[in-house]
């Protein structure tokens, strides 16, 4: 679509409306809504409702030399009267003002139960709505700039969440900008003429879309009213990002400060190979999950592949029977569909566990990694009646057996965090000498803290040198799964293991979704909200998880501090 002639040489400006401009926005709302079928065709006058009394308004202006012209606008409903409430009263009359409590979207949908799980004491809620754009100026980024401007305005007001009632046919537009659909079933309500869905925007999350909003809010705090514009004098074509510039000093507040030190050494988290999914192996060790059939496992595998992680553990074929058959089918799927995943299988140090992997290797002809594991801690040795010499013999024999036959060996020491350093040194040195190209330190019982993980990973690096990759496999018994994994990466680990929703034995593993969130936050990688949601939904459905992660009672009252 070619932009109207003046768009090529004029600036787009997004800013709060003043009293004089408000009638233009209400008129534009009426015009757009009548044309879109939300209002009776040919309706005239102004579109004003009782919620406007508590609103802040944004306008999108084009200025071609003859003064700014309003081409779009939007509103943000708050819980207190807006700065233009007197102007709204004059335009709407006394009957319409201050008559409604709460939010417009709450007349249509039930938001509070879900919000009660999220809102923290003192956090504010706002509603976004009535975003309109004159017909001639659609598809050039005006709507996107308005929505991001609303998000920035909301952040500037201290809001943590925004809700909205969005037309069903525009859902993809809003979800691209950070909105999450709370209920996929579109509703046709008596107050609406089109089907609508409830949207939630979590302004506290490092969603890629809302990063722009945070930037807008930061500039808004620093310099005042927000102006979003492209290159000076020109509106950018669709798909390119608008740049935030400053205007006057209406909001003389201090810019937000960042206490966090820059995590430059986490840059390798941006590589897909730095994340390894264990949902289908260690995740299924949870005593409370349903073990899915092969159809379910294939769906989970596809969802893992969509995440942009580098590898996935498919199971332990040595368990035999159904498990072995499933692992073979999953490995075949990766090869046939060319999924961007390195397949991995778990195995104990014995022939019975390794030979099924060789069969898979033969059948698929693709690379196959084996997580060859062996208990290493003194406490485990005591319980099993082992000694170090026995462990070294097993390591030498079976690492060599696997590596010599074409398997990529990751040598895993179980319970590494409680093992003696000298035992680890000898075990890992033996494994590397026999062909292991990757080692894995595990916090089998979840006892580690980040300082310990840092010391451990650095120690292992000094043992195996730079040519051998190091993995970290953490558990959540102390609630430290995520910081331990981040510490491992910072200390030089090449890859960390995680599962969907942190499922796994006892208190589970490091949650993959939080590692992806940190990847987005620390490396600038996009936050793939829809894919992550799809992954979590697939796992929750196939494993029949009884309690979702947002498990707090909806009846809880949230205390304002």
């Amino acid at each position: 679509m070619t932009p109207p002639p003046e768009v090529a040489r004029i600036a787009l400006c997004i800013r709060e409306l003043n009293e004089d401009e408000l009638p233009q926005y209400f008129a534009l709302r009426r015009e757009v809504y009548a044309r879109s079928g939300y209002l009776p065709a040919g309706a005239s006058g102004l579109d004003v409702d009782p919620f406007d009394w508590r609103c802040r308004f944004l306008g999108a202006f084009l200025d071609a030399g003859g003064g700014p012209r309003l081409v779009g606008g939007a509103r943000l409903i708050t819980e207190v009267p807006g700065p233009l409430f007197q102007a709204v009263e004059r335009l709407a009359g006394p009957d319409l003002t201050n008559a409604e409590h709460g939010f417009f979207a709450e007349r249509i949908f039930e938001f509070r139960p879900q919000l009660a799980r999220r809102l923290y004491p003192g956090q504010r809620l706002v509603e976004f709505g009535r975003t309109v754009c004159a017909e001639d100026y659609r598809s050039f980024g005006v709507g996107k700039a308005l929505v991001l401007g609303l998000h920035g305005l909301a952040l500037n007001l201290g809001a943590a969440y925004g809700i909205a009632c969005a037309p069903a046919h525009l859902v993809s537009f809003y979800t691209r900008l950070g909105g999450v659909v709370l209920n996929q079933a579109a509703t046709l309500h008596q107050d609406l003429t089109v089907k609508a869905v409830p949207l939630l925007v979590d302004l506290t999350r490092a969603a890629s879309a809302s990063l722009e909003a945070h930037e807008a809010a930061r500039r808004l705090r620093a310099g005042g009213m927000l102006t979003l514009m492209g290159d000076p004098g020109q509106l950018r074509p669709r798909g390119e990002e608008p740049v935030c510039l400053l205007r006057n000093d209406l909001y003389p507040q201090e810019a937000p400060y960042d206490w966090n030190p820059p995590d430059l050494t986490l840059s390798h988290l941006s590589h897909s190979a730095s994340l390894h999914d264990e949902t289908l192996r260690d995740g299924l060790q949870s005593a409370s999950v349903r073990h899915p059939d092969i159809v379910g496992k294939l769906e989970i595998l596809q969802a893992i592949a969509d995440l942009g992680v580098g590898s996935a553990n498919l199971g332990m074929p040595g368990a035999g029977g159904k498990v072995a058959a499933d692992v073979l089918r999953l490995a075949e799927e990766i090869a046939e569909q060319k999924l961007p995943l390195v397949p991995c299988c778990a195995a104990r140090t014995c022939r019975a566990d390794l030979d099924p992997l060789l069969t898979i290797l033969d059948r698929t002809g693709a690379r196959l990694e084996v997580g060859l594991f062996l208990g290493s801690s003194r406490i485990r040795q005591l319980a099993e009646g082992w000694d170090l010499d026995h462990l070294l013999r097993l390591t030498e024999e079976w690492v060599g057996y696997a590596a010599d036959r074409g398997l990529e060996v990751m040598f895993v020491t179980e319970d590494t965090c409680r093992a003696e350093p000298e035992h680890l040194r000898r075990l890992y040195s033996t494994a590397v000498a026999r062909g292991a190209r990757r080692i894995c330190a595990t916090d089998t019982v979840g006892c580690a803290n980040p300082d310990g993980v840092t010391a451990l990973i650095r120690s292992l690096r000094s043992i195996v040198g730079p040519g051998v990759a190091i993995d970290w496999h953490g558990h959540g018994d102390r609630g430290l799964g995520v910081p331990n994994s981040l510490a491992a990466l910072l200390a030089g680990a090449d890859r960390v293991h995680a599962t969907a929703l942190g499922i796994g034995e006892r208190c589970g593993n490091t949650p993959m979704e939080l590692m992806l969130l940190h990847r987005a936050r620390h490396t600038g990688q996009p936050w793939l909200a829809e894919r992550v949601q799809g992954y979590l939904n697939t796992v929750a459905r196939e494993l029949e998880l009884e309690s979702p992660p947002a498990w707090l009672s909806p009846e809880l009252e949230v205390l304002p501090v």
Partner: protein
Amino acid sequence: MIPFEFKRPVLLEDCTLALTQLDREQQLDHLANLALLRVGRAELKPGPDLAVLVEECAELGLTAVVSLKDAAALEEALVPGLEVRVSPALLPAARERQLPCWLVLSGVGQLSPAALARELTRAREHKALGICLQDELGVATPDGVARLAAFCRKAQAALGMQTEVLWCQRDTEGTGIYGALQALRSGLSGVRCAGLGLGGMLALDTLLLNLVLEGLWSDPTEALKTCCAHLVENLDLRLPANYPLAGRDAFCTSTGVHARAMQKALQMGQPALADQVYSVVAPGRFGFSHRIEVGPLSGRSNVECWLSERGLSASPETVGRILEIAKAHYRSLDDQEIFTLLEDRS
């Protein structure tokens, strides 16, 4: 693992009661459990029973706290023995009424050093008893928390302030517990938290587990278990199975390798070894116990342990038959299913 080094006793402020709508009897139950845990302060919700609850707190050795949201609420707080938490805007008015005040600073994760120093100065001028640093957006990483806490302590020293400082953060990205430990290690006095992480706050129970493991808190024995169970029951919560300590699976295994190791330790007459071979902490220290289930990833040890725990025995054939059925099943067998299998075999 490397132990943390902390400088002082840890103060915990529990906000559970302020976040919930428990009735008075349930609130008193919770207060009693908090007292057993020796939590320093308990935050209450303003209401008609406030004065009674403050008295109960005093008897149990807890300091009663209430957060005030506006000037109108100041009058409600004129209860002897009650401490109040106020925003900077309310601090002067609260001090005029001679209320014992703590200053709550919101959004500290994005507050500049200069602004933080200004607020600390204000707290000193108005003789605030303490300061609560609140990162409600959860933006501060553990390293960021450490820097913030260190700055706060330095600024306090420069200002000649001795007041206590609490850390409060919304745990949005899975690093909150470690952030709280970093805050304590960096010299802050304590942490505001809530049972089971209600309201997205730091979880009192998980934090206590860490403090116990770091040697900073004595074993709370049954009190913590009772506290968690009390909240689950009265708030009708559905706790995730893998929730630390109080979740259904926190001390449960259904895999063959793990059950076998525990069984071997028990057969060696070493129950303490069995307790810790696959657990970060002996569950008995917190009033919990291990549970072994029989499921698709189980071995014979799981079945044998399950029978042994119930004082039962069965022939090798029966054990094998139960295991065969469990391995073909899509999830762990429940107790009734195993009892039925035993009856069928007999």
